[in-house]
């Protein structure tokens, strides 16, 4: 990395092995209950299951009927039942009525003592067989692996429950034993550090067979190190599709407005899709141009047929037509999706929203932004979007002035319901939406002074106030890491200069910038000030620095608490620039809605 010469990007390890492992495990579990059985699946495990097995796999192992575990009693005529569930106390409670049946409960991906305690208290412990479906990692694409643990974020960061730390460690351990040994491990954040330690311990407990490494470095990062990035509206194609249509396990359902027919189509979105793979990382403003160019090429290819003789047509039909038609279909789907995005985004005054976000990132026209947010709330436009703007305001400004906080909160409750008192309490606990404490207002002044005076003075002023925990310090970080490019320069989105292109050139994602800096410096040397502003917990461990092969250019980035498609796009860009390849491992794919929905208290 140190020598910024562009090289061809290295070959990515084959992660399909992980799918095979998960499938074999599942089959093993199903065979624990020989003969015909009914299978009950927890609703949010269906998509992951779909990625590794299909109905015929299940049928081969004598699964008779399939049910979704829902909010109602379980009814089945079969004597043998198999459950695939997550280790949630509420779900376990539902198993209790299944007396007198042969029952096997497979827990994804680990069982918790708390669930066992519930089973014991209810008197079914020992009557049922529980086992773990140790399905830690689901490859969603060549370079994305998901733990499929959306609850990781809330459990770990809001509730402060470290139940998933060992799971994350085990996932890392699995990758290490299949594709390691890793030569360097970097990280930042409390959870990252704990995950690292848990992984180390598992390495010590087990044995590592010497093998040729396929992955060189690993970077662990907590989601709460950077809340700004996932709060920003996504404008890169894949991110936009996720924001609008919701990508589930690498699969999206396009409704009738996209397919321009009366039915919905489910489409896998990954590098296999030739059209998608070319536009997924593009800024949305380029997508239309690309698609229409593609359409013209396709027309030309079709037109070749004119003037062919019968023999040539035969060859054309057997060799080219199928590919062309597939491309045709993909193209019309993505054109449909883009049109639908355009329609939705103009209706919602998307431009104004983006403008406000950019102002907040830049720390410019804050009063105007606040009144925009106020109007947004007044008009009862989407709850999530209003919350997102409030949080972005708070995180970038290091909290709201008490007067603003009270008035915005009151108006929010009026528009969306007083029940959201609980949401506000959660957001405050997490530090996402807070009131500035008296005395802290100086930090705002400090950031203003910082702009006038040089960086050194600003640094000193920051020192004085950084003792308070849970501050975002975004302005100071932004200045030091140069996250917001100067706005007077033109930014050509067709030829991206840096990672800022994923946010229209307005902001380089903090998470990705950190990764870039640490890899460039081979550690945290020179970044002491930065890590202090980020509340510390950084580490860098060099296990073996001798390695100089292709594996060295494969870097695994593990996001604890979720990462967005925009961040993945930024890392892909960075990889191309630096001649390396990033593999993203995440507890789940997230975006602003998922992040905030996880923090709302839904009615029980």
């Amino acid at each position, binding site marked *: 990395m140190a020598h910024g010469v562009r090289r061809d990007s290295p070959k990515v390890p084959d992660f399909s092995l992980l799918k095979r492992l998960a499938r074999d495990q599942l089959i093993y579990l199903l065979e624990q209950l020989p003969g015909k059985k009914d299978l009950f699946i927890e609703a949010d495990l269906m*998509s992951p299951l*779909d990625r590794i097995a*299909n*109905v*015929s796999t*299940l*049928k081969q192992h004598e699964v*008779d*009927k399939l*049910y*979704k575990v829902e909010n*109602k*009693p379980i*009814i089945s*005529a079969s004597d043998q039942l198999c459950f695939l569930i997550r280790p*949630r*106390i509420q779900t376990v*409670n539902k198993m209790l*009525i*299944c*007396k007198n049946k042969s029952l096997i409960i497979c827990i994804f991906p*680990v*069982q918790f*003592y*708390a669930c066992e*305690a*519930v089973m*014991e208290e209810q*008197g079914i*412990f*020992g*009557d049922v*067989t529980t*086992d773990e479906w140790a399905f830690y990692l689901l490859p969603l694409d060549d370079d994305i692996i998901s733990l499929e643990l959306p609850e990781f974020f809330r*459990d770990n960061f809001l*509730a*402060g*429950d*470290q*139940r998933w*730390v*060992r799971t994350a460690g085990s996932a890392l351990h699995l990758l290490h034993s299949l594709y390691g040994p890793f030569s360097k491990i970097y990280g930042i954040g409390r959870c990252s550090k704990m995950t690292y330690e848990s992984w180390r311990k598992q390495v010590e407990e087990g044995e590592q067979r010497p093998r040729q490494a396929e992955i060189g470095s690993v970077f662990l990062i907590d989601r709460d190190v950077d809340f700004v990035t996932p709060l920003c509206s996504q404008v890169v194609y894949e991110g936009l599709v996720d924001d609008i249509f919701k990508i589930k396990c690498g*699969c*999206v359902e396009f409704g009738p407005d996209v397919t321009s027919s009366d039915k919905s*189509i*489910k*489409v896998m979105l990954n590098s*296999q899709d030739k059209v998608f793979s070319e536009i997924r990382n593009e800024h949305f403003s380029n997508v239309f141009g690309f698609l229409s160019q593609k359409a013209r090429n396709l027309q030309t290819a079709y037109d070749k047929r004119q003037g062919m003789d019968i023999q040539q047509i035969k060859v054309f039909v057997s060799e080219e037509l199928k590919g062309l038609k*597939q491309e*045709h*279909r993909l193209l*019309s789907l993505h054109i449909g999706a883009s049109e639908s995005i355009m329609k939705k985004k103009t209706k919602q005054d998307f431009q104004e929203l983006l403008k406000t976000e950019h102002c907040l990132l830049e720390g410019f026209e804050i009063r105007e932004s606040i009144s925009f947010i106020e109007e947004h709330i*007044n008009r009862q436009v989407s709850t999530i979007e209003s919350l997102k703007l409030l949080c972005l305001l708070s995180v970038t400004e290091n909290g709201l002035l008490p007067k603003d906080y009270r008035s915005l909160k009151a108006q929010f409750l*009026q*528009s969306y*319901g*007083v029940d959201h*008192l*609980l949401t506000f309490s959660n957001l405050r606990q997490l530090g996402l939406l807070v009131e500035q404490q008296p005395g802290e207002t100086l930090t705002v002044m400090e950031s203003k002074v910082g702009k006038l005076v040089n960086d050194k003075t600003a640094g000193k002023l920051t020192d004085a106030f950084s003792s308070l925990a849970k501050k975002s310090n975004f302005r100071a970080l932004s200045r030091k890491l140069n996250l917001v490019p100067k706005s007077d320069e033109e930014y050509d989105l067709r030829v991206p200069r840096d990672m800022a292109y994923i946010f229209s050139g307005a902001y380089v994602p903090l998470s990705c910038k950190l990764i870039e800096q640490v890899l460039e410096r081979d550690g945290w040397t020179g970044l002491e000030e930065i890590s202090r502003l980020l509340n510390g917990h950084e580490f860098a461990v060099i296990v073996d620095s001798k390695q100089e092969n292709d594996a060295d250019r494969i870097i695994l980035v593990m996001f604890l608490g979720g990462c967005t498609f925009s961040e993945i796009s930024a890392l892909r860009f960075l990889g191309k620039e630096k001649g390396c390849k990033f593999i993203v491992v995440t507890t789940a794919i997230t975006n602003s809605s998922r992040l905030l929905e996880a923090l709302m*208290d839904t009615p029980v």
Partner: protein
Amino acid sequence: MMKSKADEEDYWNSSKFKAFTFDDEDDEFSRLKESKQAVNSIRQLVDDDDDEDDVEKVSWSGEPVGSISWSVKETAASNQRTDREPAFPKITTERPPLNKSQSGLSLSSLFKGKNKGGNLQSFTDTLGDTSVRLFAPELRKPKSEYKDFVSDWTPVETVQRLQQGKAVSLEKFRSLQDKLLLLDFAVAAHDGNVITAVLIYLKRSLCKEVLFRELESRQTALRHFIHYMTETRDQRLLLELLRSLGRTEDVALLQYKENKSIKDENKRRDFVKSCLSLPFSPEDSAHVQDHYTLLERQIIIEAADQRAERDGKMEIFQRFPRKAPILNMPLITTLYYCCLYHYNESEGTYSSPLNIRQTFKISEKQYFATVLAARAKLKAWADVDALFTSRNWLGMMKKRSPLSFQRVVDILQKNSAPTQVLQEYVGLVDDAELRISLAQKHKCHDIVINTFRDMKDRQLLMEYRKKVERGSAEEKKIDQLLNNVQIRWKN
């Protein structure tokens, strides 16, 4: 947990679970698929248009027939009835002998190993072990040897074994010091699962006063404990804990949270009323008071409106039928509702918008935006007009708005206001550039033309002439202006 027989029968009849068997459906589908393919192979040569069925064969199509999500959907959807006996869940009085002795073993069995694939098996083993060693040879064996059976793991080893899911007993940690040592090592291992396991043991073996006291200085463990109790819905103990920690605001919020699960509106109102005395922060206390006042009012309004709707006395309910009851809606939705149905009521009634505005101290801006949207929805343009009109101190009529006129235009346009109405408000936008772009967007030709005239910009005016309809009044107006020799054009 255990339903009575009658309940089961009841449930059974209404159950939406319908079985789906692969055997029948799958065959049909494969046959269907085959025929589709056969048809397609012909069509492919003839037809250039994309056909859906082609997708089935290529990998990128999301959920092809045969995928699991698809199949589960079928299970739920298929309406075939299978004859099955509601053989479940039956509660028999006969229990396997294993169960009887289970309770005596609770803690050790809880934390015993999770040998892959044979929990039942290993359980029996443990049981056999205990019975032999506990009852038969105890008298003759020295105590140390008995202790050896219980296993003499140190706290560190115990935590490690718990992490690995190996058999371990926590019962030997009896002194408070040992218990806390165990807890602290669990916390140091960063394994939430183990921390909770130890906490469950502590909860069972310590009185709550001692437990709470010790947790206070152990934040990580405390948070795990709170989370565990939240998940098991042990509200009573959780409240006690929070109270003992002096976290009064959390106590208040936690209790208030329960209102969400109360379905009956009257009970809900009473519950929220009972929350008023909880130790909220002064600010939140006011919000909860508002919640109560609002609910109370909604119940009254709903009852009255339901009657009015049924009796057909108020014409507005026929013209714009209510979509849903107003109960449990946010304040602003309620205000909007009242602006639709009760706009002209005197300030004394509960449902009068002005009364609502006063009671809940709604900001001027907010009030305007809501009234505007509601009256525009009803196309009551006179009301809209009146909303903005005020007299200044000279008695002159003037249009004034707490919202920017740009936003006003936006709201009107979203409620499909006619151009004439829009034009009036577009004209009031101060910023000339913004005014033109809005006017162009909403086809308010007069404003565009007048603004260009005021700017003395002949070029732009000529350009705009191309955009208006031929032979229209607008075109004439432009021509007149262009021919007007009095105007000193700047270009």
